[in-house]
């Protein structure tokens, strides 16, 4: 018994583990807050696109000896501009344009990686490596994440109104162009902050799953945010902790935990879950048959 406990507590004795837990829960929280807006706005694909499109920027930043967040952020913004530019000047549908642009940039990044020395750091961008995060990367992550979080919290009510009803937002004088751009920039910033933890390929899960889970659990936006953050942070802690025993794949462990929580909400959510829905239908039928 004692031996089991000692084994379970072992990860907490390491500095790198504590650091990883801290970073991943911060990232989990920031992504979760944003995920409420992204899922309601229907921007999942946009999130996936920006996260893939940062790759060439990260490689370039590495070659030029710049902080990786700078390259990633710039690359993300370029992808968004490219999407907007092509969409407004062609008849191709938005999701198609997004797909074309992000796969192009992602491929460019892969080609660039294959040309530069096969440095481990770059492959970590693909899958994340929060257990091996350096002091420098940690700071970059924290600053990007804190900036994104501050921006969302300041703008949250205007962003919510913009996502719900842009027509009304404009009618009462809000600057909807600014809100649209702000949401995109915050999205790019959040993705950048999450790169070290889950990597390019899985970031999108962090940006949608907590929001989707919370959406099944409540009909109130403020509660949705709270629940999303709770599931996001819990998944980050459990996932990171579990990955110690697997010796890696932290990002995948976090995302798996989120998926399990989503599955539970899908089945057992009090009002919108499958069981509750079935029960509700049955009760209604019985009431009708009796009445």
């Amino acid at each position, binding site marked *: 018994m004692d031996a089991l406990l000692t084994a379970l507590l072992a990860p907490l004795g390491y500095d790198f583990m504590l650091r990883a837990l801290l970073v991943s829960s911060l990232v989990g929280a920031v992504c979760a807050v944003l995920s409420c807006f992204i899922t309601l706005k229907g921007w999942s694909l946009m999130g996936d696109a920006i996260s893939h499109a940062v790759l060439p920027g990260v490689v370039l930043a590495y070659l030029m000896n710049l902080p990786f967040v700078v390259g990633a952020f710039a690359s993300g913004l370029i992808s968004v501009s490219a999407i907007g530019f092509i969409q407004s000047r062609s008849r191709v549908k938005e999701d198609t344009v997004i797909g074309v642009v992000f796969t192009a940039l992602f491929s460019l990044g892969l080609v660039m990686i294959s040309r530069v020395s096969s440095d481990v750091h770059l492959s970590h961008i693909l899958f994340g490596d929060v257990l091996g995060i350096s002091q420098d990367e940690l700071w970059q992550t924290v600053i990007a994440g804190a900036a994104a979080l501050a921006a969302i919290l300041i703008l949250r*009510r205007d962003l919510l*109104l913009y996502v*719900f009803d842009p*027509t009304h937002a404009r009618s*009462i004088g809000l600057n909807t162009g600014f809100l649209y751009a702000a949401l995109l920039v915050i999205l790019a910033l959040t993705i950048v902050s999450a790169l070290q933890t889950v990597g390019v390929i899985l970031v999108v899960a962090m940006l949608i799953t907590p929001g989707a889970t919370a959406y099944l659990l409540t*009909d109130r936006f403020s509660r949705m945010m709270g629940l999303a953050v709770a599931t996001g942070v819990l998944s980050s802690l459990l996932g990171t902790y579990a990955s110690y025993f697997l010796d890696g794949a932290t990002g995948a462990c976090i995302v798996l935990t989120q998926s399990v929580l989503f599955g539970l909400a899908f089945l057992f959510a009090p009002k919108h879950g499958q069981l509750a829905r079935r029960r509700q239908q049955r009760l209604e039928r019985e009431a009708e048959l009796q009445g």
Partner: protein
Amino acid sequence: MSAPALDVQGVSVAYGGGRLALRNATLTLQPGRICGLVGMNGAGKSTLFKTIMGFLPPLRGQVQVFGQPVRQAQKAGMIAYVPQTEDVDWDFPVSVRDVVTMGRQGRMGLLRRPSAADREAVQAALARVTMTDFAERQIGELSGGQRKRAFLARALAQDARLLLLDEPFGGVDVGTSEDITGLLRDLARGGRSVLVSTHDLGALETFCDDVALIEGRTVLTAGPTAQTLTAENLALTFGGRSPLHHPARTPARPTEVR
């Protein structure tokens, strides 16, 4: 003389560069008056609303609200607009009260936290459209008519000087429809100006000070209800068929001379 509440001068617009949806439309609305906008399906009523709000940029002409450019008036919270159909996600996690509170958002501080006055205004607006009992419902858990009332409450909560209501009577029952006309009269008495499109020609004379007839992609004629709502004008507006057998004889209240 004070500026008109709404001044549309020679406006032409087109959707996506195609054929004109409005051609050289002109309309003025004086403060404290209700103007009914009437015309066949597809005549351009909703288009006129969208143009006034700046959602469709006019190719020609200009719109002013209380003597200001529209954008400026919007920023000052002067215009409340209720579209013909709300293009929103009805599964959105907001309550009726949350939605009505959005009417106040333009006037809230930096962090947009509702003040006590905001909450009171929301409560009053909900009561005015008898939606108080539904305040905590998720916005999609309402009937069509209740949804209309919720969005009308949002416009009321905004406390704007000019209200643009695109078919508020569409799909509401007789009682609600009478409530809304009473509400509009109250607003006008309080000095608000209202532009309201409707297909209910019979009710026009009971609550509109002015009527604007829209046909052939332009405002055919506009003016005090009694003078404008003639069999002749209606026949022109509705392509020969006059839907009103008894053209207005007695206006609901004497229309004052402007």
